[in-house]
Structures are given as C-alpha cells and as structure tokens.
C-alpha cells in the first residue's frame, strides 16, 4: 500500500511545491540531518483524501516557520505581520497542493477535502502512516506526512 506513495514521489512533490511557490529556486528544501527536535509550538496543515482510497496529507512545522512560509507565498516583507486569516489560508494551501499531487499517486480517482489548519491534528480512525518525510527548510524542521486509511 505504501509502495504507490513512495518517499521519492512525496519528496518530489514537496520539493516542487517549495521551489515553485515559496522559494522561486530549487534546493532550499533538504532532508533533515540527524534527530528531529520536538516541536515546541507546532502548527498543522492537512487535507483529507476521499474516495475508494482514503488518506490524509499533512505538514507540521513550528508556528514561526508557518508564518515565514505564509509571508513567502504572499510575497510579504520579512517583518510584516501575517494575519490569522492569511496564515490559515496560505499554510492550508501548501497542504492542499501537496495533497492534490499525492492523490494523483493513488490507483483510483478520488476527491480532495478542503484544507484545514490547526495547532492539533485530529486523529483518524484506523490510519497507518504511509510516509513521513523529515525536511529542513532554511534550517527549520518541516514534516510532510501521508496516511492511508485502508
């Protein structure tokens, strides 16, 4: 089951999202080297995959990193304050684009839920973690995870 959502594909998806929409350059999203530190103030963005194959694609990062991502997407200055609405929309849109591309890896055509952003990730019954990529974006940890729910 996890064979079709392989880590290379998920990494390729995450990398393309970051290079095209956030950084404007390739090579700024790298594998995390060493142990991943505990998130102190995590923020989650996720979309659910619906249909014959159910699942979820989620991003986790520290809240300040999520703000930095939102500023990059919205082309805001480094010291500009991101509103809650912009943060939720921008961070959620990253999960949405990642999720849509992950959905296309599945063998049957499903649909995509609407993106959600929260400080806690609600559990999903019977989910098994398919891929968990520990990444470094400009030195900050970002986890991209894909679950499939049988």
């Amino acid at each position: 089951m996890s064979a079709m959502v392989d880590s290379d594909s998920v990494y390729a998806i995450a990398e393309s999202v970051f290079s095209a929409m956030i950084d404007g350059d390739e090579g700024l999203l790298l594998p995390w080297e060493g142990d991943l530190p505990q998130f102190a103030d995590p923020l989650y963005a996720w979309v659910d995959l619906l249909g014959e194959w159910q699942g979820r694609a989620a991003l986790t990062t520290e809240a300040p990193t999520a703000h930095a991502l939102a500023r990059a997407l919205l082309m805001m200055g480094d010291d500009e304050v991101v509103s809650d609405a912009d943060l939720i929309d921008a961070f959620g849109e990253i999960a949405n684009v990642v999720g849509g591309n992950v959905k296309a890896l599945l063998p049957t055509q499903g649909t995509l839920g609407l993106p959600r952003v929260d400080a806690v990730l609600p559990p999903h019954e019977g989910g098994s973690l398919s891929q968990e990529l520990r990444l470094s974006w400009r030195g900050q940890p970002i986890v991209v995870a894909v679950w499939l729910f049988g």
Partner: protein
Amino acid sequence: MRALVIDDSRTMRRIVSGTLHNLGFETVEAEHGQAALDVLDSGVHVDLACIDWNMPVMDGLTFVTQVRADPALRDITLMMVTTESEQSQIVRALAAGAHEYLIKPFTADAIREKLEWLGLVPAEEYV
C-alpha cells in the same frame, strides 16, 4: 485584457493575479464558481478565466460546463489552475471545454508560456 481569477484560496488568487498583472492583465477575483458566474452576469467582460477545481458552492468543472453552455460567453478563454493532476481529470476538463490546464504548483513562467500558446500574451524572446 481582463482576467477572472477563481480560487477559494485568497493566497492562490493573489499569486495568480500578481502574475497576470505583470503580464499586463487587469484582474477580477471570485472565490468559487457561482461567485464567478455572478461577476459575468453583472456584465463584466473578461478575456480569460483561471479556474481552480475544488471549491465550495460551485467547483471549477461545473463553472466551465456552465460557461460553455452560454453562447454569450464563448469568447472567454478558460484555463484550469488546479492541484487535480490525474490524467483523467485533465481529459475531463478539456472535454468540458477548458482550453488549457495548469497544474499547481506552477511558476510565473509556466503561466506566461501557457498564455503565449493561447495567444493572449505576445511571445517573449528568450536569451
């Protein structure tokens, strides 16, 4: 040239609109297909619509179908801009009447090249 940018994400609307402004377009935004139809019904003329697929109220595919059913709107060029990236979905959108299909994530260059192909912006000379 005026473009209608239809996406439920304000972030995505800002990115698409920003790219279109740089290419010389004026833009009007709508957060779903029904809101976009309302804009067109109000008499706003647009040359191009950039359309997300998954949106609340009315999705992008339904919007494309509705626009194609209305002869008065036949001059609008329809480009899907969506994270839906299965081949079958692209075929569906083209069959429904979309002229082009851009998969998220995309770069500003990708938008420009699609619009060049559609004849909506003059071809830029590359170095």
